[in-house]
Structures are given as structure tokens and as C-alpha cells.
């Protein structure tokens, strides 16, 4: 079956059942997924441009009276499709922990301080070339209950739409050289090393603003229609 968006692109994703990440055990389907042709329902998707985004929604450091604590960073890059084309005018949302590794979410009660000047949510749209940019604070690592002494590597959660409802992506951006990588079952749920690399931002000295902020580049690659010449099934 040839699909408009080749299904082979999905191989990069983690298996839904990845038992080292314990919560997957009861939250992953056990019956086979049904493979179907893409109809107009799958091939279209929500188009949300600038009307959804307020001025400064992409700067997480100026959403409160004072400045948040932590290391100010620029996170930027391109939303691309697998065919290498920029994905223009697409909504990019992010959320993250503060510099101490604490989320403002009420369920996060780990003993690290909240920052009254940091919410940790942002959104923007990519420009005509697919470029997006955020200003934020480098999030801290945080502990979680998956196994003894489990800590998540520092990460920023991303949500991106793209060209269709089947290009929808929720992922996490990591920071280069994190010592927690080998121990994190969520990061390692992606079994292909090259695919894991694509979740790691690169340090971007060139776009660092002297005496103000370091920069990290993170390109987000979504499914493309002509991604591979071969198609399975």
C-alpha cells in the first residue's frame, strides 16, 4: 500500500511499548494497528498562523515582572519536512521545567524551588522559510519515579503541527553532552542512534549573543510526502 506520507518514515519513532519506561506497559495498545490509505481527512491539518500567537509569546524570560533565574538561552532552528523543505507558518509550542528542574504543574512536587518569574510555556510560528526562535532559560534535570535514582536529562518539550494531521509531532529537545543520556529510558526508547541524535540540539556559538545568552540550534524534521522512493506494505 502506497501512502501519501510514506509509513517507512515512522521507523524513527520509539516502540509504543518500551518496558524500561514503565508507564508504557499499561498505556500501549496490544492489538494490531489498522493500516489504511490516507484520505483527505489525514492529508489536511489545522493551519494556525500568527493570530494564535501574541507578541512575546516566544520569549519565556519576559512573561513576568522580574527576570527568571538561570542561564538565558536562545533556542532556534528550522521546522523542515523530510524532503528538506522548510515548513512555513506552522505553530511551534514548547513547555519546560525551570532552571532548578521544577515544573509549575501542580503534580510536580519534587523538592526544588519554583521561580515566580518563570512559567515555562511559549509558542511561536515558523516564518516563510520554516525558521523559529525562542528565548528561554536552560531547564534543569529532574528526578522521576520510574526506577531507583531516575533523573531526566535536561529537555524542552516541543509540539509542532506541520502540513497535515499525520505530520503532527510531540517531542523533546535535549542538550549536547548530557551525562544522563545513557540512563534515560525515554531518550533511549528511540533505538536508532542516528535518530536519537536528531533530538539533541547543537551548541551554536555563532548565534550566541555576547554577554547576554548562549544559543542552541534545534531543527525539527517532520514527515514528508516524497520522503523515500521505496515503500513497504
Amino acid at each position: 500500500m502506497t501512502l501519501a506520507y510514506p509509513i517507512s518514515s515512522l521507523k524513527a519513532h520509539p516502540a509504543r511499548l518500551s518496558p524500561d519506561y514503565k508507564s508504557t506497559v499499561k498505556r500501549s495498545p496490544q492489538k494490531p494497528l489498522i493500516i489504511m490509505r490516507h484520505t483527505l481527512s489525514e492529508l489536511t491539518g489545522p493551519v494556525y498562523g500568527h493570530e494564535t500567537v501574541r507578541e512575546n509569546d516566544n520569549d519565556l524570560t519576559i512573561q513576568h515582572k522580574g527576570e527568571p533565574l538561570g542561564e538565558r538561552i536562545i533556542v532556534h532552528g528550522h521546522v523542515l519536512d523530510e524532503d528538506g523543505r522548510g515548513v512555513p507558518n506552522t505553530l511551534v509550542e514548547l513547555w519546560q521545567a525551570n532552571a532548578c528542574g521544577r515544573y509549575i504543574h501542580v503534580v510536580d512536587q519534587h523538592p526544588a524551588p519554583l521561580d515566580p518569574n518563570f512559567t515555562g510555556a511559549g509558542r511561536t510560528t515558523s516564518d516563510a522559510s520554516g525558521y523559529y526562535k525562542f528565548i528561554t532559560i536552560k531547564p534543569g534535570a529532574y528526578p522521576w519515579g520510574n526506577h531507583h535514582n531516575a533523573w531526566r536529562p535536561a529537555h524542552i518539550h516541543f509540539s509542532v503541527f506541520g502540513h497535515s494531521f499525520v505530520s503532527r509531532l510531540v517531542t523533546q529537545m535535549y542538550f549536547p553532552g548530557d551525562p544522563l543520556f545513557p540512563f534515560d529510558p525515554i531518550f533511549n526508547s528511540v533505538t536508532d542512534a542516528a535518530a536519537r541524535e536528531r533530538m539533541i540540539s547543537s551548541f551554536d556559538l555563532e548565534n550566541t549573543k555576547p554577554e547576554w545568552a548562549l544559543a542552541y540550534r534545534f531543527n525539527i524534521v517532520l514527515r514528508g510526502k516524497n520522503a523515500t522512493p521505496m515503500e513497504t506494505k
Partner: protein
Amino acid sequence: MSGITPSQTVGPYFKYGLTPNGEYEWNDAFDGNLVTPDTSGERIRVEGTVYDGDGKIVPDCMLEIWQADSQGRFSDPQDKRALPNTSFRGFGRVGTSKDGTYAFDTIKPGQVADPDGKPQAPHILMAVFARGMLLHLYTRIYFGGEAANAADPVLALVPADRRATLIAQQANCTGNAVYRFDIHLQGDNETVFFEV
């Protein structure tokens, strides 16, 4: 060689960023009400509960829906027939409540053709995200009592004994129709999910 960016779980803490719903100091880009004043069509509510493989409710689930308008057209320039005279966007997003429930207020979609030009029965696409889900799942919401279900080419792909998991059943007799659509991530009543 290139490749796509892999998916990772939405995690347990997405609410303040993606579905704050007045509980956090952040505004909602989307919510569960898709109906705008100029939207034509039959107003309906789709509601239900999300369950895990132990039958426990899932209170940290995010659900997104995408659908055509009442004439079967999508608010997307890729649908060349899209109508210019409605602000119906066809997209909604909610987080489940503490009790695992959710609700969308929308309109019953019209029919959309399949790639062969055959009409599909009215349906809504749904994407399911949660802590413990490394990659979201896609399902489809069909409507009980809809004659077109019998000839729907996608429902026909689904084993007959599992089709009912895709069909929302009307739960009331008066007022705007309320359709119940529970989601079972796993187990005997596991919802049918699609690899798309």
C-alpha cells in the same frame, strides 16, 4: 541520510503549556469548543473517558480532534474546495480531567471522499497523547445510527467485532446530541487505532 525527528512522550506536565484552561497563567491556543457563531451544521457534543490497560482512568491525557465542516470540507488550503464563508477551523484540543473525562463541542461533520472518490461516513480524527505514550495514537470517531457507516471503506478494514470501539453512541434524546466515545488504550475493549 536524513530522517524525521523521533516522537517523545508529552509527559505528565503538559497542561500548563498546552491545555491550561484557566488553571495556569497562560492562555489556551485551542480548547474543546470548535463551534463559532457562523458555523452551520448539527451541533453535537462528543464526550467520554480514557482508560488504561488496567481499566484505570487516565487523568493526564491530551486529546486533539480534526474534522471537516458540515459540508465535508476542511479548513485547510490543501482542501481546494474549502468554503471561505465560515470561521469553523475544525480543530480542538483538551486535556482529560482528574476523573479521566473529556468533552468537545462541535458539529457533526459532513462526508469526505476516500482516495477513490467513494464517500466515507461522517467521522472525526482523534490523536491521543499521554504520559506513558511515546508516540501518539490515531483513532476515528464515527456516529451511531449513521446509515453511511455500513459502506465506509475505513470501517470495512476493521475486524467486525472491533468496529463498535470506533462508533460514538448517542447518549441523550433531547437537546443537542451528545455522543459518548470512551477510549481504551489497551485491554479487551481496546479502541481501534490506525497506523497512518
